[in-house]
């Protein structure tokens, strides 16, 4: 069910996995469902924002320019320069694009017209994590060559030879197989669970307040509806934090892939 429909039995339909089921609005175009429409609009928003920011540049910044500069310098200084060192400029467009795209798509979850974080559909998180996986492995292979990159990844310096049988499979699995899985699942699960939490408070509160008889239930429903505003605030915080974390981890993975021996 994409929206509430009253049951004949009148019971409570708890929100679950099928609350995220949004059939495509135009049956002739089956791939254009709500997630895809949101993502396409977000691409135009992000591209438009950064193009406008790149255009009007005065020496004494206006308020709009200050906002754009703050966002840009936040990603550039705190994420790119701190993690990647002196050649961060090659990867700065990727990090800014990732941060902006994930932030806008996450904030769709609290925006009144959409109210659905795009990454609560796991395929979107898998796609982004696959892109990051390709990029950090390719960066390492271009810098060190395939054999050199594998050697650096699976065998940290200073490991004695009698530990190699344990360290090499563990490091291989941890760096090359598990990293994209946790990266995608972290983003997806945070968006999914957060949206589900809001749904439970709102739908449960509405049911308790309007469709159940005892007074205690009605009071509990009212409190749940009011508290859902606080959960909304928590959701905004978690969405911004998850966008930041994804970008920071991408920078960290690229940095450890291209790191020189010291």
């Amino acid at each position, binding site marked *: 069910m994409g929206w509430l429909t009253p049951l004949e039995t009148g019971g409570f339909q*708890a929100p*679950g*996995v099928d609350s995220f089921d949004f059939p495509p609005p135009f049956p002739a175009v089956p791939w254009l469902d709500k997630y895809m429409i949101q993502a396409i609009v977000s691409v135009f928003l992000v591209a438009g924002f950064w193009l406008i920011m790149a255009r009007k540049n005065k020496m004494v910044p206006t308020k709009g320019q200050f906002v754009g500069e703050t966002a840009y310098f936040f990603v550039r200084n*705190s994420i790119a320069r701190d993690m990647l060192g002196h050649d961060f400029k090659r990867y700065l467009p990727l990090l800014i694009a990732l941060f902006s795209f994930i932030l806008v798509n996450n904030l769709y979850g609290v925006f009144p017209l959409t109210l659905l974080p795009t990454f609560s559909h796991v395929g979107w998180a898998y796609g982004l994590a696959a892109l990051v996986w390709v990029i950090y492995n390719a960066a390492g292979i271009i810098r060190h060559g395939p054999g050199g990159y594998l050697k650096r990844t699976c065998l940290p310096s200073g490991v004695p030879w009698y530990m190699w049988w344990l360290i090499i499979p563990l490091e291989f699995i941890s760096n090359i197989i598990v990293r994209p899985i*946790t990266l995608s*699942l*972290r983003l*997806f*699960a*945070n968006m*999914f*669970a957060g949206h*589900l939490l809001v749904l439970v408070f709102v739908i449960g509160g509405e049911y308790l307040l309007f469709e159940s008889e005892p007074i205690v239930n009605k009071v509990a429903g009212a409190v749940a509806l009011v508290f859902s505003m606080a959960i909304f605030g928590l959701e905004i915080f978690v969405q911004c*934090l*998850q966008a*930041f*974390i994804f970008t*920071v*981890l991408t920078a960290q993975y690229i940095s450890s892939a291209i790191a020189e021996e010291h």
Partner: protein
Amino acid sequence: MTLMELTGSLGIVGYGLGAIGPGIGVGLIFASVIQGTARQPEARGAMMGTAWIGFAVTEALAIIGIALAFVFSGQ
């Protein structure tokens, strides 16, 4: 003869067990932030930045648990 029969959702029990680790982990992270701030209040900003990164990475395991509890219970 059956000794005991339990019905219910094993996914939720699994999630409950899986939330122990991240709970302890997040508590450890912020305990060390509080201690570090007590020793050296000027380092608070840098410590809080790292604390949020560590929090998100640790919390990911608990959140993956609740998401998979829904997926495996089939509701």
